[in-house]
């Protein structure tokens, strides 16, 4: 679904993303793990066309992102780290706006998101003002807004930060269901327990790949009991190597 080759992003002399190679399949939940500043958000922003790579290539569903910018954008749903729906609009008006800029008739958009809205219990709050919603609902609404055009590829940049554990579980249930319907979901997180829900993860540090693979296999390889342990171990080893 999405492939990158030797992806690099430099801001001046600072290398935020350093030689990242990814191959993410249809229906896969792919996790980006790493501390703040590890390059997760920068990588995701390049993958969805918000940032131009300094070098390397990205193809989405067979299309080169640099050459087919508009075509690629129709295939991508993106939920940014910062809550960015319009607080002065009603929930439904926000959805209508996103349907509008993706040129999806609103009826069709509502059909596209009906299942997720039911799961999230959003149907009842559609006429509420977005700004007045509790944080948990805002996050859910942001995810739904990213799905109005039924994109095969969904990027979620730290979707569960600031959400209580119960709501996080629900969120992951929805992510799982999206993957079941064949969407590729790319998630960044710094909650290690969430990494267990991913089909594959990449652990990043200083813009570089530290490890990449299935959570269970990675834990085996590094004799870690949990993802938390794995994370600390691989980062520790990586630090020891670079010293």
């Amino acid at each position, binding site marked *: 679904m999405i492939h990158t080759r030797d992806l690099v992003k430099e801001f001046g002399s600072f290398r935020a993303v350093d030689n990242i190679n990814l191959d993410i399949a249809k229906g896969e939940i792919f996790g980006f793990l790493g501390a703040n500043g590890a390059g997760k958000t920068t990588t995701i922003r390049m993958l969805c066309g*918000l940032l131009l790579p300094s070098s390397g290539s990205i193809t989405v569903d067979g299309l080169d992102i640099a050459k087919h910018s508009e075509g690629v954008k129709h295939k991508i749903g993106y939920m940014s780290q910062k809550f960015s729906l319009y607080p002065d*609009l009603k929930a439904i008006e926000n959805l209508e706006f996103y349907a*509008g*800029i993706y040129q999806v008739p609103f009826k069709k958009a509502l059909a596209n998101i009906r299942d997720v809205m039911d799961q999230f219990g959003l149907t009842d709050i559609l006429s509420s003002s977005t700004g007045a919603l509790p944080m948990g609902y805002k996050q859910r609404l942001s995810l739904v*807004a990213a799905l109005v055009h039924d994109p095969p590829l969904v990027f979620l940049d730290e979707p569960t930060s600031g959400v209580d554990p119960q709501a996080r579980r629900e969120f992951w249930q929805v992510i799982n269901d999206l993957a079941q319907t064949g969407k590729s979901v790319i998630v960044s997180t710094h909650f290690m327990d969430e990494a267990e829900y991913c089909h594959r993860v990449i652990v990043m540090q200083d813009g570089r790949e530290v490890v990449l693979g299935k959570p269970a296999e990675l834990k085996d390889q590094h004799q870690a009991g949990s993802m938390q342990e794995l994370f600390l171990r691989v980062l520790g080893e990586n630090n020891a190597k670079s010293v």
Partner: protein
Amino acid sequence: MPNLSRIHAIAQKEVFHILRDSRTLVIIILMPLLQLIIFGYAMNMELGQVPLVVQDNALNGASRALIDAFIHTDYFQVVPLAAKQLEPKSIFRTRKAQATLSIPKDFGNSETAVYLEIDASDPNSAQLIQNYATGIVGSFRGSVAAGIDLRPLILYNPDMKSSFFFVPGLIAMILVMICALLTSISISREKEMGSMEQILVSPVSASEILLGKVLPYILLGLLDALLILGVGMLLFQVPFRGEFVVFLLFTFLYVLTSLCLGLLVSTVAKTQQAAMMMALGITLLPTLLLSGYMFPISSMPPVLQKLTLVIPARYYLQIIRGIMLKGNGVQHLFQAGLSLVIMSAVMLLVAARRFKLRLS
């Protein structure tokens, strides 16, 4: 090619913002009214009821007739002062009067000269006082004794009312300020809030974003123009001699130019604060000083005259004064209108080019 349904989606969302944000409504309605009223009453170029001290040493029929001629205008008001205070310097120093008129003993008989002393610490007022007094004395004498008899005919504003001059000017100034402010703030707000990022991920193009943003404000700008025009006519009795359709057409062009200026600002400013400062900075003073509103362009040094060519209000002032005071039609305003069209097009193109569809 810009896509209409995407522009519509953006414009519609913008309308919601406008209707629900009380701050925008304040900018749109209260700001122009306040400016009109404050400027209108404070920026009065006429003088009235100038305190005048009269020292009549003739005390005859002719001198009383002259003093009456002064009193019967609205321009002067005679200040009664005891004789011992009649020393001009102390009168001016204590601000008891702005001018003194002394009539010599033999006035009306052998003497024809009268003396006027004017406090020129405010030179503009002094000039006006001199003009008024000369006028009064001139009409008192009936006609000029010497050979030349100048009979001026003052057109379009025969009473030389300053409201005729500042109301059209204020429309020009307020419109450019508000339009530039509104668009630049609305775009920089989206950058600041992070919603721009969400829009940039979508297939929307730069020109679609800019057009969607500008469209609702064109309507608002026109409404504002009508508001200022209406209140200006009501409060200050300014005439409207031209055609309303012509006014709408050319005001539309001016609003468009001003909005494009705001778009251009928003491609530079990253925060709402910066956008606001920039929008005010490039509209307020340049419009006031370089548009020909306050100071005639023809009396500026050549360099400044060239600079006025890029001030949109320069063209709109010709237009609005032309329509309101002279009853100009399209054929008289064609060139100024064309200049506005060109400015809009250039600014829109530059803004669309500069507008980044990616983050930096």
